[in-house]
C-alpha cells in the first residue's frame, strides 16, 4: 500500500512540477531569455491569491483572476522594460540573466516586507486527505492538480499548433531574425510569450498555496524545478517539460519506498545529471543551434 500511496503522491507532485516548469520552458524555448524571475512570478501569483482569498475573503475565481492579472503584468512589464532595453543595447545572455536574477531578489524582499517573512497557507477542505482504502489517503486537490495540468497543457498545445499566433511564437523560437521577413515583430511576440508563460504559472502557484504553503523565498525552489524539467524534457519542448515534471515528481516520491527521505531531492539532480551525460537534448529535445 505504501508504494500505491507514493505513486499517487508522485502523480500529484509531478503534475504540479509540470505546471511550474511549463511557463519557464515556454519562455526559454521561444525567446532564449533565461527568465530567472519566473520563480518571482510564481510567488507574486501565490501571494496575491492568498491576500484576496484568505485575507480579503473574496471568492476564489476573483482571487484567481487577480493572481493571473498580477502575474501577467509582472511578466510583460519585465520583458518590456528590462529585457527589451538590455537586448536593444545588445546586452549578452548573461546580462539579461543577471538582471532577471536581480529582479527575483527584489521581488523576494518586497514580498517579505509587504506580507511578512513567515510562511502563509491557504486553508481549503480540498487539501484534506480522505482514507480511500486502509492506509491509502488521497486529497481531492490531487484530482484538481492533475485536471488542471491536463487542461492547461491541452490548451497550450492547441494554441501553439492550431492558431496563427502559436505558429508565429514557434517561429520566434526557431529563428527570430527570419520572422521579420514575414512582417512579424519579434519584440511583440516576445511579450505574448511572457504573457502566456506568466499565466501558466498561476494554477501551480494557487495549488501550491493550498497544498504546501507559500513563503517569500520559494521562488528559488520553483526555479530549480523549472530548470531541471526544462533540461530533462528538452529545451523548447512543452511536451518534454510536462513529461519531465511528471518524471521528477514521481521519482522524488517513489524513491521514498527504498531510500531515506533525506535523499529524495537528490534524486531530481541525479536524473538531471544522467540526462546531461547521456541525453543532453532531453526527452523530446532537438538539436539547438547557438
Amino acid at each position, binding site marked *: 500500500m505504501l508504494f500505491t500511496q507514493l505513486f499517487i*503522491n508522485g502523480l500529484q507532485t509531478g503534475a504540479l512540477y509540470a505546471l511550474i516548469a511549463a511557463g519557464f520552458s515556454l519562455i526559454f524555448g521561444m525567446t532564449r531569455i533565461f527568465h530567472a524571475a519566473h520563480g518571482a512570478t510564481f510567488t507574486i501569483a501565490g501571494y496575491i491569491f492568498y491576500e484576496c482569498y484568505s485575507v480579503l475573503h473574496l471568492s476564489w475565481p476573483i482571487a484567481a483572476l487577480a493572481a493571473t492579472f498580477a502575474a501577467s503584468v509582472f511578466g510583460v512589464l519585465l520583458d518590456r522594460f528590462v529585457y527589451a532595453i538590455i537586448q536593444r543595447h545588445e546586452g549578452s545572455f548573461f546580462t539579461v540573466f543577471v538582471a532577471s536574477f536581480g529582479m527575483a531578489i527584489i521581488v523576494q524582499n518586497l514580498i517579505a516586507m509587504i506580507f*511578512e517573512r513567515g510562511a502563509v497557507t491557504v486553508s481549503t477542505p480540498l487539501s484534506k486527505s480522505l482514507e480511500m482504502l486502509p492506509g491509502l489517503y488521497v*486529497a481531492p486537490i490531487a484530482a484538481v492538480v492533475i485536471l488542471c495540468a491536463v487542461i492547461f497543457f491541452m490548451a497550450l498545445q492547441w494554441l501553439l499548433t492550431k492558431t496563427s499566433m502559436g505558429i508565429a511564437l514557434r517561429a520566434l523560437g526557431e529563428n527570430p531574425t527570419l520572422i521579420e521577413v514575414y512582417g512579424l515583430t519579434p519584440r511583440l511576440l516576445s511579450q505574448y510569450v511572457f504573457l502566456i508563460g506568466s499565466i501558466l504559472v498561476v494554477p501551480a502557484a494557487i495549488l501550491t498555496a493550498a*497544498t504546501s*504553503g507559500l513563503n517569500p523565498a520559494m521562488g528559488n525552489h520553483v526555479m530549480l524545478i523549472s530548470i531541471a524539467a526544462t533540461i530533462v524534457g528538452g529545451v523548447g519542448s512543452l511536451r518534454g517539460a510536462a513529461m519531465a515534471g511528471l518524471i521528477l515528481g514521481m521519482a522524488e*516520491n517513489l524513491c*521514498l519506498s527504498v531510500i531515506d527521505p*533525506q535523499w529524495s531531492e537528490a534524486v531530481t539532480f541525479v536524473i538531471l545529471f544522467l540526462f546531461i551525460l547521456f541525453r543532453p537534448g532531453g526527452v523530446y529535445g532537438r538539436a539547438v543551434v547557438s
Partner: protein
Amino acid sequence: MKKLILGLTLIQAAWALPASATDYAIGAIFPMSGPNAEYGQIFGAGVNLAVEHINADKKLSGTLSVIYEDSQALPAQGVTAATKLVNVSKVPYALSAFTGVSKAVASVGARTKTVMVNGGGVGPDLATLGEYFWNTIPLANFEVRAMAPFLVKDKGFKRVAMVYVDDPIGQSLLTDLGTEVKAAGGEMVGNFSIPTTAQQFSGIAARVRDTKPDVVYIASYGNQQVQLIKQLRDNGISQPIASYSAFSTPSVLTLPEAKGVYFSAQQLNLTRDDPLTKRVVADYKAKHNKEPGAYVVNYYNAVLTFAELASALEKAGKPVTGENLLAQRKATKSFEFVGATVSFADDGTIKAPIQINEIVGDGTTKVVSAGK
C-alpha cells in the same frame, strides 16, 4: 591681547583632549532573507528595543549601535558576515543565531577574541564552543529532557516517530530524543531525515503513517516547519505533533493545522515585579501589540549583557575589548535579565526552567506542563 592668547590656548587644549564619550557598535548575524528570515525579524525586534533603552538611559558614555549582517541561516554566509564584522567594523561583541551558523562563527570569535552571543540556536553542542561563545537561551537537551517524559509518561505516547532536518540541530535533537524517550519508557518507531531545502512532504507523511506512531516529533525550523505541519495533517497524520522552541513563531502559532501541537520552550516570567521586565513588556506591547516571546527577550538580554559589561569596564577605565568583556563576565556573579536574575555557567550557558506549551490557535498558547 594676553587674554585672547590665553583663551585660544585653552580652546586648543580642550580640543586636544581625548573625547570622553565613546560610541560602540556591536554586530548581529541574523537571517534577514531566505526561508528563515522570520526569525531575523523577531530577533531584531529584541535587539533594537534593547539598544533604544540603553541609549535612552545613557548606560554607556557614548551611543550604542548595531551593525546587522544577513546570514540567511547558512554557516558559510555566517562566517563571511562574522569576518566582516570583526575585521572591517572591529566589533568586540556580536550576536549570532541558529545552531549551524553559531558553530561556524564561533571559530571566528575564538580566533579574534571577539565575544559571540547566541540567543536563538539551541543545539546542545553550542555549550562546547569555547569561552568566547555565550548563550542567553537554554539549549535543546534541556528542552528534550522536559518533553520526553511529558509525552511518554504524562500523555502515554509510547511510540514516537521523528521527522528531523539533516543539520546540526536536527542531529542533536535526534540523539537526545532517542535517549530521553528510551529513559522515559517509550520507543522511537521511526526517524526520517529531510534536507533543509525540502518543501514537499506528502511522501514523508506516508512513511510516518506506516510506523503507526502515538506522537510525531518534528525537529525543523523556519518556513519548512509550517509546510511540514500542514502537509502531515493534510496527508492523514492525525496523531499529536510535538516539537521544540523553534515552533514559537507567529506563522506556526497562527497556522490552523498547528492547533493542539505541543512544543517546549523556556519559561518566561513576564509578570515579574521588577522595573526592567515591566518596561520591556510595556514598550514591546506598545510597538508590536503583543507580549514579547522568548527570542525577543533572549536577544534583549544579550544586548543588555554587553551594556552592563561595557559600562563596568568604562568605570574601571579599561577598553571595551572581547578579552576584557570575557574577564568582566567571569567577574560578574549575576545579571538582572528580563524576567529573571541569571548567572552564566563556566561554559557560557544559562539555565532556565522549561515548560510545555500547547498551541490553542489564533496565535496563542497555553501552558500544559509548568517549568521544570
